[in-house]
């Protein structure tokens, strides 16, 4: 039976719809490449999605000839783009003037039809309500210059964004439609068919030729479960960004077992942007797009706080140093706050002087959490009898009194 709710059907089944406002909104958003002048990236040609949206736009304007032209070219280019085929079928059926053609859209009980309509809504909603070109995800407070790019996924909106870091300033450079897990996001357990929410990094790359065809152009594994996931006892593994089999252009918005799945062309496009072992991937339950200066205050606050922590430690002011740790702090090897205090007092007592230097600081407002910030930095520790450099992940939480405290930290080898 028909489901009148879908704007998809509205434009699919009717010509000359009266939603002028929607036309305008789509028209404005279409075809505006989100590129900053600062980028040295190669220009992206008209993407299949742009073509699809141009056809949608034409249909909204009652111009089914243009829509037909666009869609015809699109299905020739991407015959496995099922949503494009559906729209193409609709326009053809409409133009044929043949009565009684039964559209698949008439059967909204059909799961395949529903999936295509979901994809349609995700794409059109992005074109209509996507971020403005100069806004940034508020989750990235600071990105050190050694990261040229960062990836942010808006999981409920089926979208992956790439931000380019030019001299510490971020710019939107790419965005792709993406499919996530069947049961949505907020992974807790192995097999719950959810995509994790959190901050990860790409740990490697496996090209498609070394994988089953299911993964398409290749796979970028992520380091799920991370330190914060382990705090929460989250289980599961094998969360990847990967492509699709050649039999399809994309997968429906909710289709994977936990991975984030992109069109093969989009996954290939990431190749020049991702640095395995480095590139941060923020999997978000909600992305707030704000003007860049909106996070200035929080960045300054945290940066000062971390510098303060460093200087107290560096000055061997152990009690002041320990005051930065929250009451429920645990080390990754199982010490609680009290045990950690005893340990640190003993270590620091044995030192005549130490020097702690931090560099390459990243700060992220942690997705899915209130008042939690992940700080990552390279820590160079030098004492009279010991020298080491590590990459530290430090989780800071704002306490009820407004102060930021460390609730978890973890070092990994550089």
């Amino acid at each position, binding site marked *: *039976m*028909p*489901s*009148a*709710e879908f704007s998809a*059907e*509205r434009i699919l*089944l*009717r010509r000359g*719809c009266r939603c002028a406002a929607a036309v305008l909104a789509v028209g404005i958003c279409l075809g505006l490449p989100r590129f900053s002048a600062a980028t040295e990236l190669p220009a992206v040609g008209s993407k299949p999605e742009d073509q699809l949206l141009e056809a949608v736009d034409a249909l909204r304007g009652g111009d089914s000839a243009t829509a037909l032209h666009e869609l015809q070219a699109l*299905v020739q280019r991407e*015959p*496995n783009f*099922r*949503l494009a*085929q*559906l729209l*193409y*079928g*609709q326009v*053809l*059926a409409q*133009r*044929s*003037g*043949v*009565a*009684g*053609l*039964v*559209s*698949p*859209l*008439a*059967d*909204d*009980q*059909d*799961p*395949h*039809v529903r999936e*295509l309509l979901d994809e349609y809504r995700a794409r059109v909603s992005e074109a209509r309500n996507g971020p403005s070109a100069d806004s940034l995800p508020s989750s990235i407070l600071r990105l050190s210059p050694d990261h040229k790019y960062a990836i942010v996924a808006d999981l409920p909106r089926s979208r992956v964004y790439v931000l380019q870091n030019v001299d510490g300033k971020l710019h939107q450079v790419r965005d792709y439609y993406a499919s996530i897990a069947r049961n949505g996001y907020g992974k807790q357990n192995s097999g719950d068919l959810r995509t994790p929410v959190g901050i990860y990094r790409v740990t490697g790359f496996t090209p498609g030729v070394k994988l089953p065809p299911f993964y398409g152009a290749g796979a970028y594994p992520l380091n799920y479960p991370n330190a914060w996931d382990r705090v929460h006892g989250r289980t599961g593994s094998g969360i990847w960004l990967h492509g699709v089999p050649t*039999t*399809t252009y994309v997968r429906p918005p909710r289709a994977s077992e936990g991975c984030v799945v992109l069109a093969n062309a989009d996954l290939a496009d990431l190749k020049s942007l991702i640095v395995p072992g480095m590139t941060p991937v923020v999997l978000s339950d909600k992305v707030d797009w704000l003007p860049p200066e909106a996070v200035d205050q929080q960045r300054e606050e945290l940066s000062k706080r971390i510098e303060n922590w460093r200087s107290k430690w560096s000055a061997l002011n152990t009690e002041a140093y320990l005051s930065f740790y929250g009451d429920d702090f645990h080390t990754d090897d199982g010490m609680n706050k009290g045990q950690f205090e005893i340990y640190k007092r003993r270590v620091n007592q044995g030192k005549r002087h130490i020097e702690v230097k931090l560099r390459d600081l990243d700060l992220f407002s942690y997705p899915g959490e209130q008042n939690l910030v992940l700080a990552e930095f390279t820590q160079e520790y030098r004492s009279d009898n010991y020298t080491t450099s590590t990459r530290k992940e430090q989780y800071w939480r704002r306490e009820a009194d407004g102060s930021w405290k460390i609730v978890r930290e973890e070092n990994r080898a550089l």
Partner: protein
Amino acid sequence: MLLLAGAALPALAAAPAVQEAQTLLNQGDYKGALDRLDRYLATSPQDAEARFSRGLVLVKLSRTDEAIKVFADLTRDYPQLPEPYNNLAVLYAQKGDYEKARDALEAALATHPAYATAHENLGDIYSALAGAAYNRALQLDQGNQAVRYKLSLINQLGNGPGGYAPAGTTSLPAGTPKSESIGSAPAAAPVAAAAAPAPVAPAATPADSDNAAVAEALNGWAKAWSSKNVDGYLSYYAADFQPEGGGSRAQWEAQRRERVAKPSRINVRALSPQVSRIDAHRVRVSFIQDYTSDTISDKVKKTVELSNSSGSWKIVRETIR
């Protein structure tokens, strides 16, 4: 139904030999017609009318590939004539190559925008292409479902209920056919599945009183839906109603609440209901659901099963074909 242009080419005066061949063709003597044309063309190889007629004869003789070549050559030599394009399109469509068929028809219409036959054929080609696109959209290339849109496609090309082909075309006087129809021969048999409803012979005739009560329930259901009375609409579904395609009843109900309430205007009619009995407490009703809202309108064939085990007739299953 695709229409093959079969008339004398309008701009050209046919040679006597060609007129003879056309007479033979109309009399069903295809061999004779072909002989006559071949002899004539040996001396006048460029005669468009003769070549065109030869193409038609080859179609009659089911020598499709040769006919395609004849019409294709004509489109190249006489690009201003729309008829060869049209016939080329029909033959491509017969072979299932709807893209080429479309291109040929669009070429015909480019020179003769008012060429009615090409317009009609293009409509049919579009509907065939639509069916193919739907199949690709839903990846219906195997199993039962695969046939779904192919059937509606064949239905449209063949003897569908749409009434889109001018009724008079096939019954034009045989002597001067303006055009003639080519049905789509392959796989035409199972068309009924997607065609307009054929009356279903009831397994057993329900008692008249039940019949009336079932009809009342069905009309009440359509009326509640039309007036966006969501609770009333849902009250026509049994507690153990099983949504098609899986999913819980609660999920289904939530979705229905949203969708029934959403449009600003809905009109639903249950047309031509056919009632058949399943057992003492259950009947099956097939009907055409005619749905119109402020945003869309369509007709689908729907079957519902109703049970009166609770004392009144309630829907326990609902399927769309």
